[in-house]
């Protein structure tokens, strides 16, 4: 009994969730002459930024201005204007702010070429650092007999010290136990 009610509630909820976007889309049911125009429209509203919203494209914005601009873009596509003409139309009024893909000119050099330049600089520095560390690491020093003896003595000392440390630790352990 209870389970069937739960299922009914779920079905109701799902149907509501399914219907809502369909109803919202119906508000802007758009007719184009052909699929190519429709594709261009989708691409343009995805690539152009809503001037009212800080970071949302025209396609994803509920702002009234975004709806007005979508209508304007559709109107211009139907009038046969090219993508470039439509972009120019908007840039003339709202500035380059509306372009998510900024145009290449003196003001946008840093934007376009900054990241690859930084990457190259990083790779260059990394290469130099690796080369430098390889140079210092691989440099065997030849020891003469006396130095070798000294080294052996030092190594013996430390290993003896370590073992005595270990034994004292063990002793302390047994004492406590």
């Amino acid at each position, binding site marked *: 009994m209870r389970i069937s009610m739960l299922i009914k509630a779920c079905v109701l909820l799902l149907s509501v969730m399914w219907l809502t976007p369909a109803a919202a889309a119906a508000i802007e049911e758009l007719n184009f002459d052909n699929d190519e125009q429709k594709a261009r429209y989708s691409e343009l509203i995805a690539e152009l930024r*809503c*001037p*009212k919203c*800080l970071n949302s494209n025209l396609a994803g914005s509920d*702002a*009234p*201005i975004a709806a*007005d*601009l979508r209508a*304007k873009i559709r109107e211009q596509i139907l009038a046969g204007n090219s993508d470039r003409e439509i972009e120019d139309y908007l*840039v*003339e*009024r*709202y*500035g380059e*702010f509306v372009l998510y893909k900024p145009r290449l000119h003196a003001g946008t050099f840093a934007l376009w070429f900054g990241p690859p330049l930084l990457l190259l600089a990083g790779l260059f520095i990394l290469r130099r650092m690796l080369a430098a560390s390889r140079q210092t690491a691989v440099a065997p020093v030849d020891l003469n007999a006396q130095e070798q003896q000294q080294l052996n003595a030092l190594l013996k000392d430390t290993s003896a010290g370590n073992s005595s440390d270990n034994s004292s630790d063990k002793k302390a352990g047994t004492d406590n136990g």
Partner: protein
Amino acid sequence: MSNRAKLFIPVAFFFVMLGLLFYGLGQNPGEVPSALVNRPLPVFEEPDLFDATATISNEQLKGGIFLVNVWGTWCAPCHAEHPYLVEISEREKDITFVGVNYNDVAEDAREFLAERGNPFKLNISDDDGSLGIDFGVAGAPETFLIDATGTIRYKHVGVIDNRVWEDTFEPLLAEIRRTQ
């Protein structure tokens, strides 16, 4: 360069990036640089809000200082701004105030102005928002200052209050009045 000095390069780089970050934080991201400032008024011809048979064109906004305010009865900040516009329109006699009723119902707009005072000499009805697009308007209120040559000198996004008027409009107005 000594090795010791080289160690400071990443630190210096870090501080440069930090500086840029703080500069970015200080900017208002809502303030979109206007494409129309220092350009002539767009060409338009739109219906008069109070007389549907008459039109107002950009030719009528020439030969003096004009303040074009884009507003709508649906816009709450415009309600807040309205009394101040009425006040300055009574004070600044050499400025012609022009209202662009944006994306609105003409009847509601006329009622609003009758009730709360009409600061505008010219009232343009832009019920489909097309003039707004030509002015690069993203929302309301937005206000444009136009000089005697018909050039847009400044665009203000948001409410005009006493502080905005004194800090931004008055210095510009003084310059415009001096040069014309």
